[in-house]
């Protein structure tokens, strides 16, 4: 490893301010810090610092996303072979490899576009490359339908990184979750490519078998005839956005986030609680509306509910920052997601909008919690007086 260190140390003078390759400074710095934790030591305050940094934090989130990513790749292949009627003759590796090749370009496009912009902004602003996009870059492909054209992935990523993150000041400053905004951007800008029955299953130029519909279980439920294959929905062998179909894989990710303490278990639990509450409420008014009568837990295994609750709602930057606020925030996400899903026929998936809406209100929730703390302190003075 010495030679890599030597390389970075030797090249450092060339990217300093005023040197010939200063425009590569952020790239040099980004790569150097990726390979080596720097030798900077504490200058003021505490002499010791925890080993955790933002790279490790983001690394763990990426790790937690891997099961969903792998299941998404497998499912992409699975849906393909099922649609063209060759499932019985395809081997496990054939299925996975098909999905792998289809999903990989999404990830590459998202990382190249997103990180490219990050590098440019870091260079312009003169700060270090921030790690936030490591997670966003993998979240974005996972919430896209498999047939989304790559140029759309590129545009939405660029939109999200520039207008949702960088204009606010970069990682830690954004109001909305960048990955979700990328999805919302496409959803409203190119509705026909983002919904309907033809976007979820990659046919790869082959002809689908007779009777193939390609509709997601959610679309069918919204159309009034819910027909949920519980086991396949849980495992993730249903049509849907790339990474959000497998509730099992998402739960593995949730376990990683909760055990390491990186994701807030309070938000995850309260989101599911909110979803359950709304599901139960709708049940009581269901009448002969079959979607409203759907048992609440079946909502959790279809669509993006679980994925959103575990990986999107828990974003510490765009969510609430106070501990009490997290309960309220999560609960309302759950309630709104199911409400939009079931009651509003224009939007088949409520999770995305519910989280973006609550991102918007998170500072308000926090404001009241903070005011509460202030009032308590002021009351202490009054009691004294």
């Amino acid at each position, binding site marked *: 490893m010495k030679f*890599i260190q030597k390389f970075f140390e030797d090249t450092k003078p060339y990217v300093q301010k005023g040197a010939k390759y200063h425009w590569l400074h952020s790239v040099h710095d980004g790569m150097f810090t990726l*390979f080596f*934790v720097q030798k900077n030591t504490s200058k003021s305050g505490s002499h010791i610092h925890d080993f955790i940094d933002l790279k*490790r934090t983001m690394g763990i989130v990426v790790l937690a996303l891997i099961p969903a990513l792998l299941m998404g790749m497998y499912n992409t292949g699975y849906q393909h072979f099922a649609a063209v009627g060759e499932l019985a003759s395809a081997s496990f590796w054939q299925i996975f490899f098909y999905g792998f090749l289809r999903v990989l370009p999404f990830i590459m496009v998202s990382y190249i576009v997103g990180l490219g912009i990050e590098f440019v902004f870091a260079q312009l602003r003169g700060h270090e490359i921030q790690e936030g996009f490591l997670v966003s870059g993998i979240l974005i492909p996972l919430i896209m339908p498999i047939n989304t054209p790559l140029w759309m992935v590129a545009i939405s990523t660029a939109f999200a990184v520039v207008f949702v993150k960088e204009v606010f000041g970069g*990682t830690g400053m954004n109001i909305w979750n960048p990955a979700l905004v990328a999805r919302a951007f496409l959803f409203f800008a190119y509705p026909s490519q983002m919904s309907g029955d033809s976007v979820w299953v990659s046919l790869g130029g082959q002809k689908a078998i007779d009777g193939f519909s390609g509709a997601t279980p959610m679309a069918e439920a919204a159309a009034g005839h819910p027909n949920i294959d519980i086991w396949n929905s849980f495992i993730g062998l249903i049509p849907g956005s790339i990474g959000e179909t497998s509730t099992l894989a998402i739960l593995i990710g949730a376990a990683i986030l909760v055990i390491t303490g990186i994701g807030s278990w309070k938000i995850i639990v309260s989101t599911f609680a909110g979803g359950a509450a709304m599901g139960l409420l709708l049940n009581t008014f269901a009448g002969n509306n079959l979607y409203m009568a759907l048992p609440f837990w079946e909502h959790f295994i279809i669509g993006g509910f679980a994925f959103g609750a575990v990986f999107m709602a828990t974003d510490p930057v765009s969510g609430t920052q106070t501990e009490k606020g997290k309960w309220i925030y999560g609960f309302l996400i759950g309630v709104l997601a199911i409400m939009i899903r079931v009651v509003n026929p224009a939007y088949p998936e409520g999770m995305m909008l519910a989280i973006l809406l609550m991102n918007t209100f998170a500072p308000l929730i926090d404001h009241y919690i903070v005011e509460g703390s202030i009032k308590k302190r002021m009351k202490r003075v009054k009691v004294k007086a």
Partner: protein
Amino acid sequence: MSKVINLKRGLNIRLKGDAEKVFGTSIEADKVALKPTDFPGLIPKLLVKTGQEVKAGEPIFFDKYNPEIIFTAPTSGQVVEINRGERRKILEVIIKADGRNESISFSKADPKSLSPEEIKEHLLKSGLWPFIKQRPYGSLAKPSQAPKHIFISCFDSAPLAPDYEFLFNGQASFLQSGIHALAKLTSGKVHLGINPAQATGIFSGLKNVEINQFSGAHPAGNVGVQIHQISPINKGEIVWTITPQGLVFIGKLFETGKIDFSKNIALTGSEVTSPKYIKTLHGANLEKILKGATQKAGNERIISGNVLTGTKVAEDNFLGFFDSQITVIPEGDKYEFMGWANPGFNKFTASKTFFSKLFPKKSYVLDANLHGGERAFVLSGQYEKYVPMDILPVYLLKAILANDIDKMEQLGIYEIVEEDLALCEYACTSKIKVQEIVRQGLDLMMKELG
């Protein structure tokens, strides 16, 4: 009777290098120093010149804004150096000890029979007043004000901190006289904070005080935390704090009529060959203490105080005014290949992201490396876990960064000083300089509101 308060929030950082409970050979300091930088907000005005002979208790400098507060020589000898930093700011006044430790004589007295004014005068003249700090701000107490209460924490919960029961063994009568003296200066009470292990120790036997027990991890021993639990500071209120070491010095003054600044300290840290306790002098030169005591395996960081709140000092520098501990840890100015991706079996962490979490008993060598780059606030809920007070640390820090005085006040800046949020700085993923920010806020409040 004594209250027991259980503090659930906090963290004990398990470092290697705890001091063994024995005294090493006592070290006669050849040089001692007074460092004005130990006192936030102090502008010193010198009263001595280089070359001047002084006795212990003779004035060296005073506070420009509170001229009655003087700082006196810790031992007898000759003023040999006055070191200045940027803009001629006085960093340290160094006295070469003559080894006789002669003191000016003050009158002996039983503090119980003295009036508050007489006690104040005694403390001010002898230079023991600066041991009394005030809250808010953690600055020098003002003799003209009367505090609501006086708080004394009788244990130090910081990493590798000395055991006060051992440190002050045999000094109970001095502690008691010190308490009698201070009790005259407040209309409220003198509160002592002890931990459950001290229920039958030196401190639990002291009279004329209210004793409260605090159990829990660090920062349970921080006096700020104890104040918050017993009688939180509201706007306009003032409380005083003092360390047991300060009490001992005050007690000695009243009992013997002399200034005797000899004290016990702990020499700790992973780089110290055999960590133990040492008898030395207030403000003593570290060079003599550290000679041959460390392993010299690589670059070392020498800290006067503990790893969370202490001051980085050079080997030839001096013990800080309020410190009873020296810690030596590796500097850690080395690159670490892919450090952020390391499974971390031997990386102690407050988070749950390293495998070291599986070994809850092991102690570790930690260095002064930052272990990551500085970032904006990203994670939430991280700081609260280490602050056993009803305070929202991140919101308070943001108010300070925004110079918003009203908000700082509302969010409780009067109740904290740097040390109370030191653990947040240790645990912070974004490597935010928490203590520096807190000081910045306190300085602003001091400047604006006095």
